[in-house]
């Protein structure tokens, strides 16, 4: 698999990153070298290996359904770039 300029911009956009034109070449070569390296894994025969989704052996970390009050509204809003004491405020999302 090879990343071209178009897919680079698409991936950047999905992550809300801005890649400047002068950064594109370096970014492409580094992404492609990572992918090439990862592709070596494809050479391994995984026919009888179960997919590994988690690296710990832990399963079923569950909590009982109990309400434990957490932070206050003021604390929750504290770090927001914009808020009005009740709501988080963001640039309008619908036209």
């Amino acid at each position, binding site marked *: 698999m090879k990343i071209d300029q178009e897919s680079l911009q698409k991936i950047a956009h999905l992550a809300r990153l801005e890649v400047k034109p002068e950064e594109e070449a370096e970014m492409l070569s580094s992404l492609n070298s990572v992918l090439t390296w990862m592709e070596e894994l494809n050479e391994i025969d995984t026919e009888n290996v179960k997919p590994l989704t988690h690296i710990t052996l832990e*399963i079923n970390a569950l909590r009982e359904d109990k309400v*434990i009050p957490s932070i206050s509204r003021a604390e929750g809003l504290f770090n927001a770039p914009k808020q009005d004491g009740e709501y*988080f405020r963001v640039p309008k999302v619908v036209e």
Partner: protein
Amino acid sequence: MNQEIRDKYEVVIGLEVHAQLQTESKIFAADATAFGAAPNTHISPITLGHPGTLPKLNKKAVEYAIRLGLAVGSEISKYQHFDRKNYFYPDLPKGYQITQDKTPICIGGGVKVKLSTGEKTVRFHHIHLEEDAGKSLHQEGSSDSLLDYNRAGTPLVEMVTEPEIKSAEEAAQFVTEVRKLVRYLQICDGNMEEGSLRCDVNVSVMLVGSKVFGTKVEIKNMNSIRFIQKAIEYEIVRQIEAIESDEKIIQETRNFDPATGRTSGMREKESMNDYRYFAEPDLPPLHISEEWIQSVKSQMPALPWELFEKFIQHYKLPEYDAGVLTDTREIAEYFESTVSFTNNYKAASNWVMGSVKSFLNENSLEISDFGISPARLAQLIQLVDDGKVSNSVASQQIFPEMLLDLTKTPLQIAESKNLIQQSNTDTLQTLIDEVLANNEAKVKEYKNGKKGLLAMFMGEVMKKSKGSADPKVTSVLLQKSLEN
């Protein structure tokens, strides 16, 4: 639309029904899920998606999803994990939604729906667990959207049907059945107005017999069964008209406007269709043992269709009655409780479907708000069965009085208001004799064959008894006296 054109097309509908699970706390955090709290008061660092926080799964949410799966005959997945669905939208604080993409908790299953054309099972593709998003408010004239994260992290089950629903009616019936079911199971309050149950609808049309589905359109976030039906009806006509005039259907998300009854394309700033799912590393896998499934099964409440059958088989009620009485779990329970005090099942059914339900409807009350206990209602039924009062006296005079004074028994009310029917034959015979003596001419006519006069004599006796004469006894005595 011209029926001939309409009949050329076949409709394909798939639904995604989201039901908020009635847990106290959120699916991955301990903050409350209660509806209607002041904005951003049910939040925590986990809900807000702060770095370094660790979600932990709510056991009850898992059990509720298993309960649903067992009720609809799904296979419960033994090995599950959660996945991240990545997209940016302000109501999603983490930049991803935790959901189950690869290993949904329930596979398959289905719900029976009753249609004008018969019964049909709508099958589920799967049911999965996920977290709800927050709520955005868009104020007229403001350049900001307001975000309330109280709802973020509320547990949801998403029920995804196979694309095999064929009409708006079928879709509406299906959602009605699902809503009834989750309420019976006590896993979701089914309150569509508050958004506890919401539905995304996928609609497409194709020529009858075609093997290839048409381009589908998704109508999002429908929160009323009537709107679902209307939106689908509108969309079917719109799509057929477009195809007939050689326009292309665009695959898009559309909104339904209840005011106009139309759907319109959403002007989204971005199409969000590249979710880049991957396994959620913060939550260890979930393994469901057979013992766990059995323990959920053992706590399973009665299912609506089981009660429906029981009401027909055991209580010998007509299908219509069984349908009305099992419409909600609460009504069904009230009925069952009533018949634990009386063997007159049909009378109990008539009372609950009639006087009780109309009182609740007129006053916009739920059966849980209803003051007359099942035991009291059974006493009233007994009073009628004993011939002490007529049915109409019971429903028109005693029942309203019972509602006014919950401490009095029906018998006390009947006695204090002088409503006990005269079934004492001596008293009644005296009245009858008087009536016959006063109407000698009519008695002669009766004896000459004008049998229809019986009703007139009945009326006279009733009048004399001030309505308290037992009609059955009176009728027998009256006929006997007239035949002499």
